[in-house]
């Protein structure tokens, strides 16, 4: 195996960007989705309409934003709106795609960002969902991104902050009153996953270069659906890496920090 010249985090950002199509209306959550969205805008999707729950519609920021409410979005902004307004957009079903992180995702794509352990007496108190519940409830499709390990991929999340396919039954979302179609893809540091159309169980779509089905399954807390044919995820091109590093995140706020943290973790 050739040592990749890019980090797993960069791979996720590039793959995430590719999932956003030009001309779509995308409601973006915090973290890696922010990087991926700006990457898409700078590469194949210059007409992507990026919305943040802070009320920013049509972001074309020239400096790297550090949070969804960052005032860096004011520069080049198409529409300065409000939370009532943009979260309201979601309810009308006009948002093509939502893009979310989280702390846990289960076999049916339900996301937990609230607690690890019992709700009443949590082992780890997480931030809570913010606007993620709305995005996951209403966007036509949702992309989820998370680092891949057993702890983060339990069979059942401790708390459903943002609904995926709920219990996986065919009409679960519709019965609950949700208008969006649910999770479409899960992008991790190992693979891209999607969901079986009938059972709504998570399924391997493509494996990142050098990763095997066993690698992924062994770091997943439930049984993945493995289709007969599993593609290899196309690695970032040189051009993609150049844009990501020089234009999207030139100060390395996302890319370097992640690398540093990972180094710290590995060292401990």
């Amino acid at each position, binding site marked *: 195996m050739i040592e990749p010249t890019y980090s797993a985090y960069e791979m996720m950002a590039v793959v995430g960007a590719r999932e956003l199509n030009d001309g779509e209306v995308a409601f973006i959550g915090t973290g890696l989705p922010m990087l991926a969205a700006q990457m898409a805008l700078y590469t194949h999707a210059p007409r992507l309409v990026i919305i943040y729950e802070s009320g920013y519609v049509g972001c074309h920021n020239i400096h790297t934003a550090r949070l969804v409410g960052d005032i860096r979005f004011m520069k080049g902004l198409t529409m300065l709106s409000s*939370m009532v307004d943009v*979260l309201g957009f979601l309810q009308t079903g006009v948002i093509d795609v939502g893009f979310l992180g989280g702390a846990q995702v289960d076999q049916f794509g339900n996301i937990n960002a609230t607690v690890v352990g019992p709700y009443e007496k949590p082992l780890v108190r997480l931030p809570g969902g913010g606007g993620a519940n709305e995005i996951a409830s209403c966007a036509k499709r949702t992309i989820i991104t998370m680092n891949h390990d057993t702890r983060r991929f339990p069979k059942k999340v401790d708390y459903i902050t943002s609904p995926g396919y709920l219990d996986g039954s065919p009409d679960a*979302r519709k019965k609950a009153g*949700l208008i969006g179609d649910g999770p479409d893809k899960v992008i991790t540091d190992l693979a891209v996953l999607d969901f079986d159309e009938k059972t709504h169980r998570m399924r391997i779509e493509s494996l990142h270069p050098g990763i095997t089905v066993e690698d992924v399954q062994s770091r997943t807390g439930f049984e993945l659906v493995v289709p007969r044919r599993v593609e290899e995820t196309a690695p970032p091109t040189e051009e993609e890496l150049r844009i990501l590093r020089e234009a999207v995140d030139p100060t390395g706020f996302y890319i370097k920090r992640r690398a540093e943290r990972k180094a710290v973790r590995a060292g401990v």
Partner: protein
Amino acid sequence: MGRTGNLKDKLLPLKEAVGLVSDGSSIVCPSFGYEKVAFAFIRELIRQGKKDLYLYGSGMNVDADMLIGAGCISAAEIGHIGFENIGLAPCFRRAAESGKMKVEDYSNFIMTMRFFAGGMGIPFMPIRTGMGSDVIAYANPDHVIEMDSPFTGEKILAVKAVHPDFAILHVQRVDTEGNVSIEGPKYDNVEKAKSAKCLIVTCEEIVEPEFVQSQPEKTILPGFLVDHVAVVPFGAHPYACYGYYDYDWEHIETYAQQAKTLEGFQSYLDEFIYSTEDETDYQEKLGLQKILGLRSNASLGYSTYYEAIA
């Protein structure tokens, strides 16, 4: 006569404005995006040792974490408390994990629309989110329930109006008639401000009415909704105030790092809050060069401090 009356009757020194908030009050400090948050007010709440405050909010960050760590908050109804792209909120973690603080978890939109209902004078709002998830499973049924819509019979979420005792909002400008004029994002600040029984506004500066009238679309609240005003330049630090100064990311990261331990958090409070008498002291501690470095660039509305040091 509503809350009209001359601005001079509404103007209070920061310490007196904070003094109005008695222990046990419910509060909301509009905060989203590390910007236009009444952080000086929050520091003074901590200096004055407020207790048993009931916190309402949607997306909250360092502001909420600091109040919680300092022991000011006994319960909260929230959408989110965390440090975006930095990590978890350590004081919130300790308080919630130990059970010392009672939390009702909703989503940002649920909270935003509860403030909206409060500010619109209606008892509740119907919305389409929250359903199916554990947000509704663990909701307090006195605050958030599912209902059947009139007319269509559709299932919908009913979210109850909130009316905090106090909303404390930081803005760029208040005019001499008490009208509130801002630059940059609005988030759900207006809905929060309008929901409260008493609205306290801290501002960078007082301006003439003619200035406000030259751009009336930037007026977010008329003076008759404002109860008290305190002039607190640089009052949002370590957060930003669009067009005036940027967020102080280094300070925020320092806080996030120190707050990870009780001792570290205590030493942060000691250094920046308990050992400072007031905001002038606080600003002196930060130092002139830091404050100059954060000044907004005229064409951007924020500074390029972080690009410069990268």
